[in-house]
């Protein structure tokens, strides 16, 4: 009698797969895969004093305007979107050479104005191009000075380098409150 008790009967694991499949299907249905990604914007706090850009000299500001027909106007000239990045980079890296562009990279400002009728798609595209210009300019500067692109600098060990690049090319991308230019 004692001998018989000792051998444990084998547990039937045949339905284990079914249970696991059930769980798997549950997780497949209730979860999503997408990690949120987006263009980061830091908005200025509300204040009564006029924004900085209006007190700046005209040459320091690169004016970008998007109208309700999604057309782009840069410093008064119509421009296609694929040329915007280069124009913005020229503005940031000008260092006083061209009298129409910025005198110093630390002073350069990009002002983005849009109409209430501008499509969000176009606006994001324009914003993306301007961000790309800043990122590329910073990358190039970082490459020249530290032999490493800006995005590869580690926030823990190379904090000073990051600060230096940021100070050299501060991201002054102002988004103006929209105006109604040519109401539909």
């Amino acid at each position: 009698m004692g001998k018989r008790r000792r051998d444990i009967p084998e547990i039937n694991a045949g339905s284990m797969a079914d249970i696991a499949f059930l769980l798997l299907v549950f997780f497949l249905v209730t979860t999503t895969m997408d990690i949120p990604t987006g263009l980061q914007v830091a908005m200025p706090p509300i204040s009564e004093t006029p924004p900085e850009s209006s007190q700046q000299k005209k040459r320091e500001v690169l004016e970008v305007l998007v109208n309700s027909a999604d057309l782009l106007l840069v410093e008064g000239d119509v421009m296609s979107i694929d040329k915007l990045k280069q124009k913005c980079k020229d503005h940031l890296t000008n260092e006083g050479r061209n009298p129409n562009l910025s005198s110093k990279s630390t002073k350069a400002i990009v002002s983005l104005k849009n109409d209430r009728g501008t499509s969000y798609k176009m606006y994001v595209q324009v914003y993306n191009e301007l961000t790309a210009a800043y990122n590329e300019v910073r990358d190039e500067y970082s490459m020249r000075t530290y032999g490493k692109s800006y995005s590869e600098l580690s926030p823990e060990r190379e904090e000073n380098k990051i600060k230096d690049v940021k100070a050299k090319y501060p991201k002054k991308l102002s988004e103006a409150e929209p105006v109604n230019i040519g109401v539909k």
Partner: protein
Amino acid sequence: MSKFKKDGGRTTPAINTSALPDIVFMLLFFFMVATKMRDREMKIRTKLPQATEVEKLEKKSRLHYIFVGPPLDETLGTSPRIQLADAFATVDDIQTYITMENAKKDEAEIPYMTTSLKADETVKMGVVSDIKQELRKVNALKLSYTAAKAAKD
């Protein structure tokens, strides 16, 4: 002729399926780790615009979500609507919503809260600007234009 043929010759041996649960569990754990819970029901369509310079948003707990887009239910028309949490809202509700959400968070976390704006690409900037103004009024200054990652050319 059939001297060497056994009676049950036709029946194939049973496949050993004892490793099947292991495989399925492996898949299960992959999905548990790689995905996140779907926590809200979408009432509007948001076809995201594409951008190359997108950054990953850090912690999910430090995000507010605002959705803008045309309603999925076509009887409600096609003009863009705002969705906060699970319900339709207007621009005036944003301040209350952000304040309420902030009240649930740790006070130290509030300066790091980012608002993730998920807007359909057909939405006009007028609505977006109104939302931005409302966010500035409640001092929620970190904003993210949610966009899908496009390949760099």
